[in-house]
């Protein structure tokens, strides 16, 4: 039985999630990967994140490009992506959605900020039927790698890291 999660995600919802839980995610979520996440971090450091026009608190960040080919997870343990997880969690992101094993330091950082990591199967054709409107939020010059906001309906995922534990341990 899957746990239904709708964005924005509350602190209480995160506290009740555990490694191995199957979830379905609905609502508006952010999408970004290698190229754009360092730029978002720079905005957070510079204190200009409000210029994004979206509230990061309670949000999901899906590690994917957004293109006419659809969406699908890229590896979350790529350097520029995994290194974004701790600071984005500190800024209010509650769920990082991707694939692949994270390092122990990242798992610990997720716990520190009461955030979780979920693994989504790379099922682009199935996700296509569950994806609604999409729009570019920032850095349009990055094309498919720009920061996007998309509306999703019951994206399937498994909680891969929560409360200091990892499904890969």
């Amino acid at each position: 039985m899957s746990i239904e999660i709708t964005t924005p995600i509350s602190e209480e919802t995160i506290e009740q999630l555990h490694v191995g839980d199957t979830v379905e995610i609905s609502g508006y979520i952010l999408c970004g990967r290698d190229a754009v996440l360092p730029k978002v971090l720079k905005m957070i450091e510079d204190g200009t994140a409000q210029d994004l026009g979206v509230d990061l608190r309670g949000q999901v960040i899906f590690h994917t490009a957004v293109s006419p080919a659809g969406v699908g997870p890229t590896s979350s343990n790529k350097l520029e992506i995994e290194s974004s997880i701790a600071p984005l969690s500190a800024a209010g992101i509650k769920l990082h959605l991707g694939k692949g094993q994270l390092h122990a330091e990242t798992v610990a950082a997720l716990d520190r900020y009461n955030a979780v990591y979920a693994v989504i199967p790379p099922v682009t054709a199935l996700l296509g039927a569950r994806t609604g409107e999409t729009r570019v939020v920032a850095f349009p010059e990055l094309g498919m790698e720009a920061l996007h906001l998309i509306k999703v309906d019951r994206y399937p995922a498994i909680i891969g890291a929560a409360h200091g534990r990892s499904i890969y341990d």
Partner: protein
Amino acid sequence: MTEHYEEIVARVRETLVEAGSTFREDKKEAYRQAIAAEQNEKARWVLEQVLANAQAAETNRSPLCDDTGIPHLVLEVGEDCAVTGKMLDAIKEGVAEGLRKLPGRPMGILGDDSRRIDQSGGLDPDPAGVEPAPILLRRCKENVIRLHILMFGGGPAIRAKTYRVFHKHSAQVVLDEIVQWATEGVAQLGCSPCTLAIGVGRSHFEAASMMLQAQADGRYDVQSEMEREITRRVNEAKIGPLGLGGSTSVIATFMKVGPQRASGVRIVCVRPACCFEPRIATVELGE
């Protein structure tokens, strides 16, 4: 020639779409058998999702994965067949049309050498901006011209390895090394279960071309003794689909061993092809 040219363009276009959207029947059956045998509930869930995704993609003729891949082409030429420059142009145009129709992900990088390396030249918004890799040409027994189109994703490229192995006059030494590389690669690859594509040659180019041909020729229902051993041993690591545990880390192994030289060294290429690969379709372009 114009009519024939257009016909080749159309056939290549539709074949590329098929490659990017369709599991071959032997692969579907391999997944069904893996689902039936898998005891780990989460692993079975992932396998079912991947197979359902394949069925949806085939029905819609839409991409299996949002990383639609880089086209890799194997062109087979029969005894009395001639490949002309015009035919190669038609193949290239067909690939471009196929990428637009699939649609392929627009991920071609613009700019000079330096800008293409650091990605500062921007992205080509046209899916056809993703140029195919150099064509591999080989002879075939039948008197036809046959084209295999394979779409190579980025994840397996990150985890693939081509390097030398000192064989110590033992095939087992080389197999042990392959199993070690493959186990490491599969563990790091997010999108498993894998099909291991392996080439053994005398140079890096030859080993990589053997790896490509292994994917063109491999079948899930025909496995050699060495292929079965590699699959079994990597699966013993219990990495499982998406790394979530279980006994299905690898569905099958496709291995091609080329000619070898008198030397203590073999050059080995191991590509942990992701759950959608080989994304392949084949077409005959004429006699």
